[in-house]
């Protein structure tokens, strides 16, 4: 596993079904190529464009291999869906089509290179027919069904490489971003692909999406493995906090059987949903002062089938009707900024949290505050900090990191101008 800023690169034998379960990543791609960045400074513009073209022409094998692995993965996924749908209780799942959601603030893209294609099922040639036969026995959200059918038809339908339609999406940042626009680079790659493989470009509805990202660390090209970002959960109807962050916070909390987990400002309940989904043996309670938020949370719980796992209370975080030292874990995304007016001193909130928490047990907060408000309670073991509205002296930040048991988000995590939740 290799971790660079914003990306995790890893190899695996898992199929799409397993990969769908990745919780801390925004998106997942199948890696085509990974290179050290083009030295933008030393080469002329023309030379660099040539290098970009060579991404394709120097190594067509990588591209073809990746496409073939991608196709196989999709076929395998559909087949497995068939088998599992028959036995499982038909669950109503909602898939959100909105690819525009891939926000620029996306922070972890996972890249995957499959070294060996692990085929567990016999691949059927007539995948489309099989789908039709079983359609009547399956209850599914119609949109999702069509999605998957389309994917397979597209992948399988393009019987030869020449039938494949594609689109290149490109991102350029760092040194190379100063010299080229994403469109320029994307175009060059697109043309190279057309020349090399005879594929046709289709900007509206391609079979194959190619993502290329050039920055100061790597130049990478990959194929997105899912239409919808991983962060867009099938079990969350309306997300509040980004699901990947919510999951990460919950995983820091080390929830065990019977752990009493409270989110005293739960909003739509995203953190509790992620936690209860992954660690169903905890005892989860969410609290909020807002009727509309609680209603949204209740809807979310119902849609996720988790309303037996998570209790809701309409209470105020500074007046929690709980005895002192009664809660094992508190996880919260504290509302801040102009969007939410909490009108309460953060200190009071922290004090109340301290009161109800069992001593020396984790207090996981997500914060955005000027440094003077940050005195993590002695038993605050994990603190998130978001630095846009804070000016931490490097010493202050260091001290806090030392006090914290785990810091998931380093100050650079979110980059400039981005807010959490």
């Amino acid at each position, binding site marked *: 596993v290799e971790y660079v800023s914003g990306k995790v690169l890893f190899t695996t034998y898992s199929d799409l079904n397993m990969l769908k379960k990745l919780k801390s990543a925004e998106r997942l791609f199948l890696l085509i190529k990974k290179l050290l960045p083009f030295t933008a400074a030393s080469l002329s513009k023309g030379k660099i464009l040539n290098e970009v073209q060579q991404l394709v022409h120097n190594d067509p094998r990588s591209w073809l291999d990746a496409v073939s692995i991608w196709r196989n993965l999709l076929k395998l996924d559909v087949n497995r869906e068939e088998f599992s749908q028959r036995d499982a209780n038909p669950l109503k799942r909602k898939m959100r089509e909105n690819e525009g959601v891939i926000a620029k603030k996306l922070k972890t893209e996972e890249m995957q290179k499959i070294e060996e294609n692990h085929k567990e099922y016999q691949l059927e040639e007539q995948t489309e027919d099989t789908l039709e036969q079983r359609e009547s026995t399956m209850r599914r959200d119609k949109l999702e069904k069509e999605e998957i059918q389309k994917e397979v038809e597209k992948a399988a339908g393009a019987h030869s490489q020449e039938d494949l339609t594609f689109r290149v999406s490109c991102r350029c940042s760092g040194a190379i971003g100063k010299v080229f626009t994403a469109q320029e680079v994307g175009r060059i790659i697109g043309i190279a692909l057309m020349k090399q493989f005879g594929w046709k470009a289709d900007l509206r509805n391609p079979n194959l999406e190619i993502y290329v990202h050039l920055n100061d660390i790597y130049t990478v090209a990959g194929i997105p493995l899912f239409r919808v970002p991983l962060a867009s959960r099938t079990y969350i109807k309306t997300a509040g906090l980004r699901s990947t962050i919510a999951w990460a916070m919950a995983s820091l909390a080390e929830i065990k*059987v*019977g752990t*009493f987990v409270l989110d005293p400002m739960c909003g739509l309940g995203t953190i509790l949903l992620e936690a209860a989904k992954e660690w169903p*043996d905890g*005892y989860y*309670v969410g609290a909020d*002062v807002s009727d509309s938020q*609680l209603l949204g949370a*209740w809807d979310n719980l119902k849609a996720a089938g988790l309303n*037996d796992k998570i*209790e*809701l*209370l*309409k*209470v*105020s975080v*500074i*007046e*929690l*009707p*709980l*005895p002192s030292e*009664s809660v094992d874990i508190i996880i919260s995304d504290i509302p801040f900024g102009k969007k939410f007016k909490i009108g309460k001193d953060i200190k*009071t909130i922290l004090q109340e949290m301290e009161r109800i928490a069992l001593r020396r047990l984790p207090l996981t907060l997500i914060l955005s505050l000027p440094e003077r408000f940050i005195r993590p309670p002695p038993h605050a073991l994990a603190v998130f900090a978001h630095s846009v509205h804070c000016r931490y002296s490097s010493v202050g930040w260091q001290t806090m990191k030392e006090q914290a048991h785990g810091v998931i988000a380093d100050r650079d995590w979110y980059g400039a101008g981005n807010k959490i939740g």
Partner: protein
Amino acid sequence: MKLLTHNLLSSHVRGVGPRGFPLRLQATEVRVNPVEFNPDFVARMIPKVEWAALLEAADTLNLAEVPREPTEGYEHDEDFLRKMHHVLLEVEVLEGTLQCPESGRLFPISRGIPNMLLNDEETET
């Protein structure tokens, strides 16, 4: 609101302190849901249960077969654990009230969610 949750809630009306527990339960709508039985989970909850409060609430709801106290070696007593599982997790108060035993203040329960917001005069701070 499950009885496990009721067992934890206490009134925060000004001046009430520890006399704000337990909240007197009154229910106009109750629902019983089957919930998957996890013996480990129930076993871990038992030491945290305030028994008097639980029994009072269970009696108000006319629940039958409620154990009066933990049995010896309860962690392995499946019968006991199942009964506790039922009482703590499967009975849901959808509509009703919770009353502060000291001040008399009523907190409504609506759609299963207790509203325990206090207005300014009532808060401790």
